[in-house]
């Protein structure tokens, strides 16, 4: 049940997107998201969709992976689409019953919103599929570097993030084990009122927390044994560097962004 989480999962293959500097990818994603929200006419949407598809193609990650990433939010997409279709005032095209007219404007708005959401998820998945969590946190750390001068512990934050990501599958597995053990002894997580079910979670969370603390303790000793001494003088296996491909990708990204802005102004 908990195994369907794909957002934040790295897909280890080799592609132009995998080889890019994580900083370029993070900044590009931010620009892309802004562009998607700025898009306000059909041509801009087509352009954004085409650009996202290009990114997907360049990532060489199977399209089915992207669909899996969309799975948890289908409900949200469909629900908002339905709301938009039926509750947007405008030209009525069809009447369901007598209260909720389906409007032309609503249909268009629903399409836009759904497309926006899908593009957002796909483009952010493209980042996490093609960037290993370590590179991702490295990238974030480097981008936040200027804030280190203001006293923000950027290295520690990055380390905490990467360890958190590392332990997600381990803790999910552990939760699963504890749940099974509790069920074997008659615990009931699935029936009863919401309040009852929330209460039933307590005997599961307590052992989970205790084991998480023990893990943290052991991990700290293991890290110390491997000469962990904080961020100073630390080097990297894959030192992130700005390559030609990043310059190219950055230019492409800026061109796309400019195109969306221009479309917004002239149309």
């Amino acid at each position, binding site marked *: 049940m908990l195994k369907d989480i794909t957002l934040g999962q*790295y897909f*280890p293959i080799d592609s132009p997107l995998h080889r890019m500097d994580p900083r370029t990818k993070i900044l590009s994603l931010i620009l892309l998201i802004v562009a998607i929200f700025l898009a306000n006419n059909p041509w801009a949407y087509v352009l954004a969709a085409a650009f996202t598809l290009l990114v997907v193609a360049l990532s060489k990650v199977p399209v089915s992976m992207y669909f899996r990433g969309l799975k948890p939010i289908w409900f949200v997409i469909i629900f908002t689409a339905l709301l938009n279709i039926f509750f947007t005032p405008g030209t009525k095209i069809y009447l369901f019953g007598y209260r909720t007219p389906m409007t032309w404007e609503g249909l268009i708005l629903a399409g836009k919103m759904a497309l926006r959401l899908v593009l957002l998820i796909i483009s952010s998945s493209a980042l996490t599929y093609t960037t*290993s*969590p*370590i590179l991702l946190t490295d990238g974030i750390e480097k981008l936040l570097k200027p804030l280190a001068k203001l006293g923000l512990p950027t290295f520690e934050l990055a380390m905490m993030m*990467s*360890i958190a*990501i*590392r332990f997600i*599958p*381990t803790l999910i*597995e552990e939760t699963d084990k504890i749940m099974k053990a509790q069920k074997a002894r008659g615990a009931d997580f699935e029936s009863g009122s919401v309040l009852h079910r929330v209460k039933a979670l307590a005997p599961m969370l307590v052992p989970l927390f205790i084991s998480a603390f023990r*893990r943290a303790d*052991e*991990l700290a*000793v*293991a*890290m*110390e*044994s*491997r*000469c*962990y*001494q904080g961020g100073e*003088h*630390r*080097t*990297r*296996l*894959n*030192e992130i560097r700005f390559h030609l491909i990043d310059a190219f990708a950055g230019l492409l990204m800026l061109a796309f962004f400019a195109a969306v802005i221009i479309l917004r102004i002239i149309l």
Partner: protein
Amino acid sequence: MSNMIKTEHLRYAYQIGTQEKVKFVLDDIDLSISPGEFVAVLGHNGCGKSTLAKHFNALLLPAGGTVYVGGMDTKDEAHYWEFRKNVGMVFQNPDNQIVATVVEEDVAFAPENLGVPSDEIRKRVDEALKTVDMYELRRHAPHLLSGGQKQRVAIAGAIAMEPKCIVFDEPTAMLDPKGRKEVIDTIVKLKEEKHMTVVLITHYMEEAVRADRVVVMDKGKVLRNDVPRNVFSDVKFMKSLGLDVPQVTELCYRLAKDGINIRSDVMTVAECVDELIKLL
């Protein structure tokens, strides 16, 4: 420098509240380990073997006595990172010592901490992964590996530090028989091919048999410190501590007890077969 690790009158106690009587977890331990030696440490839970191991890379500092690593006192803070770098450690639970989400990035963790240049890290990581036979899986996510494979990644992580000695703290306790064999074969390979000093803390007698020397501990003291054959042939002593001996040793011991003329210091299956054939 003749000893890799040497302890003199080593004592250690965990502070427990304000109790009057201090119970020593380690009580007057004298031990020396030569470079290239493979030493197994046996003993019950709570006998102090893990505490002893943590003194070997200055994770813990002695409360009494001295520990020398590579001839230097571990209390000497100036050489702090030297101790850590020279004595690698592998722990029991493979999940709790893997830091990164990709195998090769985890192996690179120690050299990264030491500030080794990138291309040198790459070399070390590749070599370490080849040594433990995990090179093909270098881009994999650790949580998808088997227990034995994870533990080999942890070993590679220690090797990449280029230590002179590796201390294994019950590395096979959480593994299935297949994983156990993978890990032990890797450990023996480190000793034989890389000439590393190996300290192996274990509960499995079949693993201890492969060591050059066995140290038996109980209640914070070293009771036996000898070659495996001499230690295991004293079956009565081992039993009195509640420890096992290898199955074949036990078999021959019982046969001898029932009046059959057989050597009682047999340690491996092959030896046992030879002895039994002689009887037939």
